[in-house]
């Protein structure tokens, strides 16, 4: 073997006596070339098929992630609506109103008291780092080491560190302006999402921050991963030690409302049982004080999300950024409360009037009028749609109460008369201007933190996320020209290779959380910029196991995970899916076509996924291309341990909305104990009921409450409750596994036996091989 291969070959044709070709012998060289071409074509085909699988696996994770974010926004708006429309004495309102209250502590002096750590004693037995301020580089390094060894920083030092951080952040501008001349290179990192392993890997590969090593961390330090607080503490520590070299940008997850759903709140409360609540409150403040963007050499903009066609850096530089505590809530406009003297019909008017004004205000938040026709699936979830139906429910509720009140207690109708409804009628044109100003500033910030780039030109609202926009290459071009810049570096989106260019290499996405969706799903990366402003990338993947896995194995594993997550979604929507299936099965045969199955899935789940492609992964047995859907669902059931006697629809509902339920729980659990009382649970349930417009009887709720209070002390353990709704049916997982075992055998092949295989007998099929394509 090993003969040189050159282009060209020799054709030896044989002719019969009439000059017709009777056979053609082609030289070995030509054959070899053709063989190579064939192998290339096949291999590229194979790679494409794998890429397709990888891509839809990704889509599954991403769709579910973004749908969750949308849910969060809707929930928040719903709760806001309740707060604005219930009487002040209402139980439900009290339960949740605290998240809408402005931080009561306004003045700096009061805040310093809140940050006061001095009374907190550190026991001798504590073996973690003991910080002394001002911090120095050694202490910061020690902190990193301590966290690597899984130690936890004592709350006294946490509070002290946060206090110092706040003092520093307050004096920083909205836009950090830095230069490469001081420290030769600047390193920029993207989303970390609580994955400490990745930060440690970055420091290992690149060195820790120092006078010579400048860093920019581009937001989303917290949520989803399990070490968010440790990452924050490390970043803040280095910020304090090297304020000129370390720069932090705010991300959309540096937001206490988002944190309620995505794990950071839970993590802090779990790790800091006594002072967790205080720590969270201080972090609320600190997040609002994080700078919004960083500019290098006046030429490179670094921002977490991106830009829009209205982004104006001069305006951004001027805003009071700390007023915008959460992306989901613009600063409240001062509203005048009026007392209504008359009842009934007047109140209806008031309610109606206020309903529209509330709707107007809500409409101005996050999703706004779009010139682009919305995708069909999203239309079902439009905020306007939702608000009006909720309003009716609230009206009905109040109507019922009014009637009850009129019949029972004469005093009650008085309080109804005093119903405060938030009025939005502007008292003067000035306040309207101020209001619009605030809305405009808020939009600027939202765009910076939530936007994503898109391929075509233009700028449209980002409905997938529910905030910010999608911006196109022409917007990038205009923006860069207007500000005399050459590159936008942003994060916010997970990329398989850790980074990705778009818009003609004028926009760079950098993402530093490896294995974000699943072990093996993606690499993380960071980028270095020198004075030439040419980006230099380093990629990595935490977890040594992933480095040894082949691409195929990685893909298989990620796919398995995605399908598991998808199955959870299916189960969560079981009753809706059943109805949809039954609509396609008017004759009640119990069977539907695969194509109808696809339509039903699309329609119910509102997830834009390639159902045709996924159906072979989700459906295993069909008879004549028809699916027995009852049977299919039986295989998706979860086993609830002690809830057999509880109504199935109730359990289905709980499962479906478990994220929302958990979020509401955490809001209701004001002392952050991890427990809520029966009464609070009932109230929570009513909230959820109203939100979902469901009809679940009090009796069912009572049954449920009794059965989940396992230690009979009148309190419900939130974590335990949520845990029991994990999709843990062994049968199903077993089956799912065997599905994958089968596939994996096909892909791995009998590798272990190859050594014993006898050499292949040569086959002589020249003719077939040379057949024209």
């Amino acid at each position, binding site marked *: 073997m090993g003969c040189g291969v050159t282009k060209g070959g020799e054709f030896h044709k044989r002719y019969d006596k009439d000059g017709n070709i009777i056979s053609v012998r082609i030289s070995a060289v030509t054959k070899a070339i053709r063989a190579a071409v064939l192998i290339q*074509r*096949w291999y590229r*085909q194979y*790679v*494409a098929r794998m890429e397709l699988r990888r891509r839809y696996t990704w889509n599954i994770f991403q769709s579910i992630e973004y749908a969750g974010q949308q849910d969060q926004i809707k929930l928040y708006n719903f709760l806001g609506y309740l707060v604005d429309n219930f009487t002040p004495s209402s139980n439900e309102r009290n339960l949740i109103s605290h998240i809408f209250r402005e931080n009561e502590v306004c003045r700096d002096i009061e805040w310093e008291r809140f940050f006061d750590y001095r009374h907190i004693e550190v026991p001798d037995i504590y073996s973690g780092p003991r910080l002394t301020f001002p911090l120095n580089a050694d202490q910061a390094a020690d902190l990193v080491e301590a966290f690597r060894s899984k130690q936890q920083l004592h709350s006294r030092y946490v509070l002290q560190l946060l206090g110092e951080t706040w003092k520093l952040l307050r004096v920083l501008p909205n836009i950090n302006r830095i230069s490469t001349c001081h420290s030769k290179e600047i390193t920029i990192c993207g989303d970390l999402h609580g994955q400490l392993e990745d930060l440690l890997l970055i420091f290992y590969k690149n060195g820790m921050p120092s006078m010579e090593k400048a860093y920019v961390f581009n937001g989303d330090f917290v949520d989803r991963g399990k070490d968010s607080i440790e990452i924050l503490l490390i970043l803040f520590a280095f910020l304090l030690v090297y304020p000129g070299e370390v720069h932090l940008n705010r991300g959309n997850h540096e937001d206490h409302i988002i944190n309620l759903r995505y794990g950071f709140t839970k993590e802090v409360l779990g790790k800091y049982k006594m002072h967790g609540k205080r720590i969270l409150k201080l972090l609320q403040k600190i997040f609002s004080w994080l700078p919004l963007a960083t500019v290098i050499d006046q030429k490179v903009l670094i921002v977490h999300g991106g830009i829009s066609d209205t982004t104006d850096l001069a305006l951004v530089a001027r805003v009071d950024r700390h007023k915008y505590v959460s992306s989901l809530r613009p600063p409240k406009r001062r509203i005048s409360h009026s007392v209504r003297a008359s009842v009934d019909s007047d109140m209806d008017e008031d309610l109606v009037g206020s309903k529209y004004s509330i709707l107007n205000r809500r409409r101005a938040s996050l999703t706004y009028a779009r010139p682009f026709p919305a995708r069909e699936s999203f239309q079902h979830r439009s905020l306007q749609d939702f608000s009006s139906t909720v309003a009716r429910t609230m009206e009905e509720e109040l109507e019922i109460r009014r009637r009850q009140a009129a019949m029972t207690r004469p005093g009650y109708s008085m309080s109804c008369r005093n119903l405060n409804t938030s009025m939005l009628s502007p008292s003067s044109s000035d306040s309207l201007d101020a209001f619009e100003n605030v809305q405009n500033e808020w939009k600027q910030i939202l765009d910076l933190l939530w936007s994503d780039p898109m391929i075509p030109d233009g700028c449209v609202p980002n409905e997938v996320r529910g905030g910010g926009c999608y911006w196109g290459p022409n917007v990038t071009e205009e923006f860069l020209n207007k500000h005399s810049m050459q590159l936008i570096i942003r994060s916010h989106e997970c990329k398989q290779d850790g980074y990705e260019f778009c818009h003609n290499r004028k926009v760079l996405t950098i993402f530093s959380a490896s294995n974000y969706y699943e072990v093996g799903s993606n690499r993380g990366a960071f980028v270095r910029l020198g004075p030439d402003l040419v980006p230099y990338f380093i990629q990595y993947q935490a977890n040594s196991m992933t480095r040894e896995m*082949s691409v195929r194995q990685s893909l298989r594993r990620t796919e398995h995970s995605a399908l598991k997550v998808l199955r959870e979604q299916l189960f969560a929507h079981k009753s809706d899916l059943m109805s949809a299936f039954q609509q396609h099965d008017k004759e009640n045969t119990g069977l539907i076509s695969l194509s109808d199955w696809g339509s039903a899935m699309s329609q119910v789940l509102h997830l834009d996924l390639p159902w045709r492609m996924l159906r072979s992964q989700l459906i295993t047995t069909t008879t004549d291309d028809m699916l027995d859907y009852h049977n299919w669902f039986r295989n998706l059931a979860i086993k609830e341990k002690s809830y057999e006697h509880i109504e199935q629809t109730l359990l289905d509902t709980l499962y479906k909305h478990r994220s929302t339920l958990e979020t509401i729980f955490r809001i209701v659990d004001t002392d952050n104990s991890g427990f809520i009382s029966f009464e609070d649970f009932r109230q929570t349930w009513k909230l959820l009921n109203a939100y979902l417009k469901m009809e679940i009887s009090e009796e069912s709720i009572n049954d449920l409450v009794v059965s989940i209070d396992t230690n009979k002390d009148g309190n419900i353990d939130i974590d335990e409750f949520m845990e029991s709704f994990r999709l843990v049916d062994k049968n199903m997982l077993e089956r799912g596994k065997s599905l994958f075992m089968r596939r994996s055998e096909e892909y791995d092949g009998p590798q272990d036996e190859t050594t014993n295989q006898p050499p292949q007998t*040569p086959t002589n099929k020249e003719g077939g*091989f040379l057949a024209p394509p």
Partner: protein
Amino acid sequence: WQNDSVQKKIRSAFDVFDHEQNQTVDVREIGTIIRSLGRFPTEAELHDVIAEIEEEEPAGFIRFEKFLPTMSRILMENKLRPVPEDLLLQAFEVLDQQKKGHLDPEELSRYLTQEGDPFSQEEMEEMLSAALDPEKNLIFYRDFVSMMTADEPW
């Protein structure tokens, strides 16, 4: 109705790569999409298809309304046909002149990076990572062929 099912197939594959759900995909993904629909274009054939469906002012993206008719035609007329699996095995056997049942990575690389539609260095490394038996440093192509030709869910 055959045509309808063909259209749905094309739509499904296209949608997977349509990130902003606005009926466009990056032009660099077209090759992947066409191949994932079971077609085996050569690089030249791929360029021809792209030239046919590109925007007048090439803007880096391809619109579904242009992709659909071209792709439908390709599928209905069975163009860019798959090469039968047994020919793939034969191709390897042709390169394995001494019929050892395996190939050296160096010689395979030489063929694949220099002849036909040459592989890039990256493609070659990727293929070797999947095809190479790390202990023996050889490519047992029969197994590799089985892997590549395994029945996909589609």
